[in-house]
Structures are given as structure tokens and as C-alpha cells.
């Protein structure tokens, strides 16, 4: 089985976000970047599937050279080789287009990624890739087993879970508990540098450019209202919060 795992490189989830150049540029200085946490689940399951029944895992990242530490970490975790599409991942459509192009050439049985990235959280790349390739896509997949040509999945739906089966090839957006995050071991780390990391040029142009960022308003102080005083709560919701 050939698996393509798409990973994003995102700021560590505890990062303090700031902007420069009159709020038009995201300030990366001093930030630590990690593999997107949901992508990490996808990667972990892909590596497990490979360990169970053979095959290869290729990681793909659309990003500039700065993301290579995250790519090599994916190799250390157990991917066999990597492809980096040398471009800023400016929007979901552009990223999906790059993934679809690579996927067309590679004949993958599974294209896995996180349900969403944790920077912009659009959560649509898997759907667009599926459309572009003309194959089914599912998200968020919490459980995945492969039986021959069939994928057996559990997916989260509003208020419950859905169990599905579909035949390969498929595009999957993944989330926990599809697998447990893998910590790269010493052997993996040392072999990562010997694994191929191919850099390819992007195709097509990005459709968006960012004109400005803004921070969400700071959290206000918390007002405690006694349970017996529901009237003043309604009053505040009307006059202060203006949500009623």
C-alpha cells in the first residue's frame, strides 16, 4: 500500500501570536514550529498501517525551506521519503492543488492528513483534494482499518459516530484517537537524514493575499451573577453583551 501523508508546519500550540508591519505580517520570530497536531495523528496511523501490512509512507508538505525540520521529524517518525512543494501555503485551494498534483503522479492508495491545520483551521483541504482527484474524501476520521481494498472507518458526526466502509483510493482528514502520537526514537532520528527529501516547484498561483490580521478582543473580566438574580443576567445580556 502506498500512503501519502500531508503535513503542515504550524506554530506550537502554546505560542504567543503577534503581527508586524502594521498588522499585515505574521511574526514568526522566536516561535517554535511543529507538525500540525492533527497531521501528526494521520502520520502516526499511516506508519502503523505500514508496520502492519507493508508498503510505503511518503510525507508531503507545501512550504518553504523553513519547514524542513518538521519534514525530517516526520521521516524520523517513520515515513520513507518526503516531498516538499517549495511555496508558501497561502490558502486551502492552493495547497490542495499542490497535493492533488503530487497525488496524481504517485498513485497513492490513501491520502491522509489532519482534519484541519491549527493555524488557520480551515479544514477543507481534504475535501478539495478529493474533488480534484475525483475520489471520495472523509473527515474527521477517528478510526481506520484497512482490509484488502476496503477501508473501515469511524467518523465523528454531530452528536455521535458513524461507521463507514469505502474502497481505496481515498482522501482522509484525521483526528484522535485514530492513533497515538509517535515520538521519534533515536534510531529514527539518525536515519532521517539518509531518507530522500525531494523539493519540487509549485504549480499554479495562489489565489489569496493577506491584507491584514487582527487579534480577537481580549477576554473581559468575569462577572458573577447569583443564580436567584436571573433578571439582571438577562438585562446584562441585552444591554452590555448585546447578544439578546
Amino acid at each position: 500500500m502506498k500512503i501519502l501523508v500531508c503535513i503542515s508546519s504550524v506554530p506550537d500550540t502554546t505560542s504567543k501570536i503577534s503581527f508586524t508591519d502594521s498588522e499585515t505580517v505574521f511574526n514568526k520570530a522566536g516561535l517554535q514550529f511543529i507538525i500540525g497536531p492533527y497531521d501528526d495523528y494521520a502520520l502516526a496511523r499511516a506508519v502503523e498501517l505500514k508496520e502492519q501490512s507493508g508498503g510505503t509512507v511518503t510525507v508531503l508538505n507545501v512550504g518553504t525551506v523553513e519547514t524542513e525540520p518538521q519534514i525530517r521529524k516526520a521521516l524520523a517518525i517513520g515515513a520513507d521519503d518526503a516531498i516538499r512543494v517549495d511555496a508558501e501555503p497561502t490558502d486551502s485551494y492552493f495547497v490542495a492543488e499542490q497535493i492533488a498534483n503530487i497525488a496524481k503522479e504517485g498513485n497513492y492508495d490513501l491520502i491522509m492528513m489532519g482534519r484541519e491545520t491549527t493555524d488557520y483551521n480551515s479544514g477543507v483541504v481534504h475535501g478539495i483534494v478529493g474533488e480534484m482527484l475525483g475520489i471520495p474524501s472523509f473527515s474527521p476520521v477517528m478510526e481506520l482499518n484497512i482490509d484488502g481494498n476496503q477501508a473501515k472507518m469511524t467518523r465523528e458526526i454531530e452528536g455521535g459516530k458513524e461507521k463507514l466502509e469505502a474502497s481505496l483510493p481515498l482522501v482522509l482528514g484525521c483526528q484522535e484517537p485514530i492513533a497515538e502520537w509517535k515520538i521519534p526514537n533515536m534510531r529514527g532520528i539518525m536515519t532521517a537524514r539518509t531518507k530522500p527529501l525531494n523539493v519540487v516547484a509549485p504549480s499554479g498561483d495562489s489565489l489569496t493575499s493577506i491584507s491584514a490580521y487582527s487579534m480577537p478582543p481580549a477576554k473581559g473580566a468575569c462577572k458573577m451573577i447569583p443564580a436567584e438574580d436571573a433578571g439582571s443576567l438577562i438585562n446584562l445580556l441585552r444591554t452590555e453583551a448585546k447578544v439578546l
Partner: protein
Amino acid sequence: MATIAEKASISGGEFLIKETEASQIFIPEEFNEEQQMIADTCRDFLRTEVWPILDEIDYAKSPELISSLMDKAGELGLLGTAVPEEYGGFGMNFNTSMLVAEVLGNGHSFSVAQSAHTGIGTLPIVYYGNEEQKQKYLPKLSSGEWKAAYCLTEPDSGSDANSGKTKAELTADGKFYKINGQKMWITNGGFADLFIVFAKIDDDKNLTCFIVEKTFGGITMNEPEKKMGIKGSDTRQIFFNDCMVPAENMLSDRQNGFKIAVNILNIGRIKLGIAAVGGSKGIVNHATNYANERKQFGISIGRFGAIKHKLAEMATRIWVSESACYRAGQNIDDLIDVLKAEGLSDENAKLKALEQFAIECAILKVHGSEVLDYAADEGVQVYGGMGFSADAPMDRAYRDSRINRIFEGTNEINRLLIVDMMLKRAMKGELDLMGPATAVAKEIMSIPDFGALDNDTAFAAEKKVLQNLKKAALMIAGAAVQKFMMKLSHEQEILMNVADMIIEIYAAESALLRLEKLVGIRGKEAVSLQNDMVQVYLQEAVAKCNNAGREAIMSFAEGDELRVMLMGLKRFTKIEPMNTKDARRRIADAMLAEGKYIF
């Protein structure tokens, strides 16, 4: 790039009489991506496997729990970093294994178990084992399939380690050594499969070292010791009753055991130093975060100057200790390379290099463990009443910190060793202390040098301060040697004072060199806080050296000599005043903004 020979141009202890270029030292900012990935793995391991169960580890009284964590660490390869690849390890260089020790140093009882296993438990075989012993034991130890313990201490033989009473007697057929005796304070004792045991054969003066498998029989032990801290680390009294050890399990030669013990402890000391840095970083992270969250008088306590002082002071000392640890680590790595290029075997090169930097190892042990204790103590204070609560992290940090000043040679023993080794090397002609000490003695009798600073040199003023501190140490050590000659060893108080000066000099100089190198890489602006830390530390180092120096001088000099030396000390402990309060505030504010240690 400097060639190896250039890089290894400084020998152990020589920092006291020789300048080092910033370009010659390694700074942790230079760790490469692979090393950082290794550090991340260690961090992730603690985060997922150790931190969530710290209470269980300490209070479940189940040695199996620590043992199973060691299994998991072994699966990740964390137990084999210092074992050569041909014996199942990863053969990483010394500073990489230091990095592993630093990160895992924040794992409380687990850290102790891990470091005892990989350090004193495994390294004797790495360095002194013959081919068969290495083939037989190292793969099992580096994978964690077997756990190791190190049995040196006895009820009546602690600091005086060569005085052990455990006996080894060759059987009539010459096939076995029969070991009898009692060992104490043995870390990992309860679950170890292999024991490195020191015993005396017949009436030998010196110890001999043996590799003892648990299954050899004749080994019994008491229940785990009840301890102040590192409660989850399994510490035992172990009894050897006619334990039959195959003769081929002698490690190295007869009577070479004390030497093995000393050399292995060397490594243990520098590793303890850097592990303490790791533990301290954990504490200051918690403390900074708490200072942001805890509100009194309507504001975060982090806005109070008294709290800022503590946070900045913790950070400064940590940064300084870390600078010194990796500087020495690289010296060791470089010398290993040189010695290997000269034809020494891997293990002999490593041993020689570590022996060469034994003074630095002792310095780092003392400095690191005392920084950790300082951080733990002030960490509790930042938490106030919650610092005293067993439900908050400072309680464990405080209790676990304390052991570090005791094991791997108490800090008193290490202080004595620092001076003792320096003087011994001077006597052997390996370290020219006499020349510079005589020059200083002359200098204090002459008119002070008001020579202008060389403004072309980076940090000229700071370097001058350090040169002077070195002079102060040499002046006092030189005078004390002259006064007491062979009886100096009876003047421990003075030796402690001199050791304190030497420790501060090495630490402060390392931090200054790291700063200078960082300025070169990132530019002055980007490292202004590091500059603050170095300036603050220099002020403190000067004050400490002045105090220790005064104590020492007053302990043995009288009349004119006393006056001249005190004048000399005053001259050599001069430093431009600065506003340390503001500098500490800048350091603390930057940390509070991020809610963590940021250097």
C-alpha cells in the same frame, strides 16, 4: 572552522591562567536540528510518560513502575546514547549526551533512575570492559532489557570511597570470586539485573570492580529506603553473601576499581551539573507562570519587584551554569577527537579526555546542584503557601533537588577536589600556576596598573574583571600554599574559599564567552537580555569572590601581609557599578511576557 587541534588548545584547569576566545567555545544555541530533535524526543517522553504520573512514581512504592518507564525509554533509544553503535547504542558525542541529560533532568525520580542506569551503571563497562564483556552486556543495557546499579557506597564508606570492607575471594579452583559485604544507598537496587560492585580482593589496598548479574545468587536486599525526596527512585541496602562471580567478570585489572570509580564519577558530575540545569528550567517555568496567574493586592505577583528579582536571578544562574556545562562538554568532545586522531581507542580517548577535565566536572557539579537548590528554594517562595502544598509542583522540586549536593561526591568533597587537582597538576608541571601566582604576588607590591582598556576588544571591561578575579584566586592560593605547604589539606575552610572563587570564575567566564559569541551570531540588540544576565552575574561573582577571598586571607595572613593582600584583593575585585535592579526587571519582564524561561 577551527581545526580540532586549535579547538583543543586548552587543558583542564587551564582557564584559571589562560584566556579563551569566544569562538573556541560551544554554546547550546549551536545545537543542530538532529540534536534538537533528540531533545524534543526526551521532552515528549517526559510529557507523555513521566509527568502525568509523578505522584504515582513517588508514592506507589512500586519499583516496577520506574522499571517499566525505563523499558519505554529504552524503546526510544534514550538509554543508549553514550554506548557505541557496535554494542547496540547510538555512539553520540559527549555534548549530545549532555543535552539528553539536561532535558531528562526535569524528570524527578525517573531522572535519577535513568542517569544511574546510563551513567554509573553502564559506563564502567563501556570504558573498562573487555570485548567479551561489552558484547555480552552493553546491548542489553542500552536497550533497557537489563537495568543496572552501581554499588560503591557502604555503611562505613561514603565519601571515603576506597575504604570499603566488601571482600572478594578467589575460589580454590580459580574460577570464581566469592563476594561478601554490605552496600548502601544503591540506586535502582530493587530492580537491577546487573550490579557494578566494588570490593577488595584479600588485603588489597585498592578496590577491584566486578560485573555481577543478579542471577549469580547470594544477593539480598532491604526494603527501599524512606527518603526526603526522589521518593520514587528505588534506593536499597544490598547484601552480598557468598555471591559467586565468575573470574572473567572482573572489570579491568585487580585494584583498578578505585580509579574506575573516580573516573566514572567524573562523568557523573558533569552530567549531574547539566541535569540540574534541566531541573532548574522546569522550576523557573512553573514559577514564571505562577507569578503571572497569582494575584494579590489586585495585581499579578509577577509585577512585584521582589518576585521579579527572584525570577531574574533564577534565570541568570541557570543560563550561566548551562553556558559552563556545554563549554566543558565541548572541550571534552574536542580532546576525544584529538586523542583518537593520535591513535587512542575510543574508550581510552574518552577516559583521558574526561580525566583531563575533571576539575571542570567537579566545578559544574557544585555549581549546577547549588543553582538547582537556589531555584527550588525561591520557586517555593514564589508560590507562597502553595509552594508548601504537596498538590503544587514546588513541593516535589524542593525535596528532589536536595540530593544533588550529596551524591556523586558531596559538594564539600568536590570543592576540595577542585583545589586539590589544580595544585597537584601544578606540582606535576602540567599546569603553570606558579608563574602567574608569583607575578601576582609581585604585582600587589607595585603601583596599580591604571592602563586604559583596549577598546578594540569586545567586552574588554568584563574581561578585565575576570582577569583580575583570576589574579585574586592565584594570589590567595599561592600565599596559602607557601604558608601551609603540605599541611594545606588541613585548612579546609581556606580550600573551600578558594574553590568558591574558582567556581565563580569559571561560571562567569563561560557566560561571558557565550554572550560574546551570541553577539557575533545575532547582533547586540537581539541578545540584550543575555547581556543583562551576564552583567548581573559578574557583579555577583565579584562580590562572592571578594567575600570568599577576604575570609581566606583573614584566616591565615597577619600584619603587613594581611594588609597587602586585602589591598590586592580590593584591587582585583573591582567592577564598574551598574543598576542590577533594572537589569533584573528587564529579564523578569521578558520572561513574564512569555510565561516561561526564554533563554
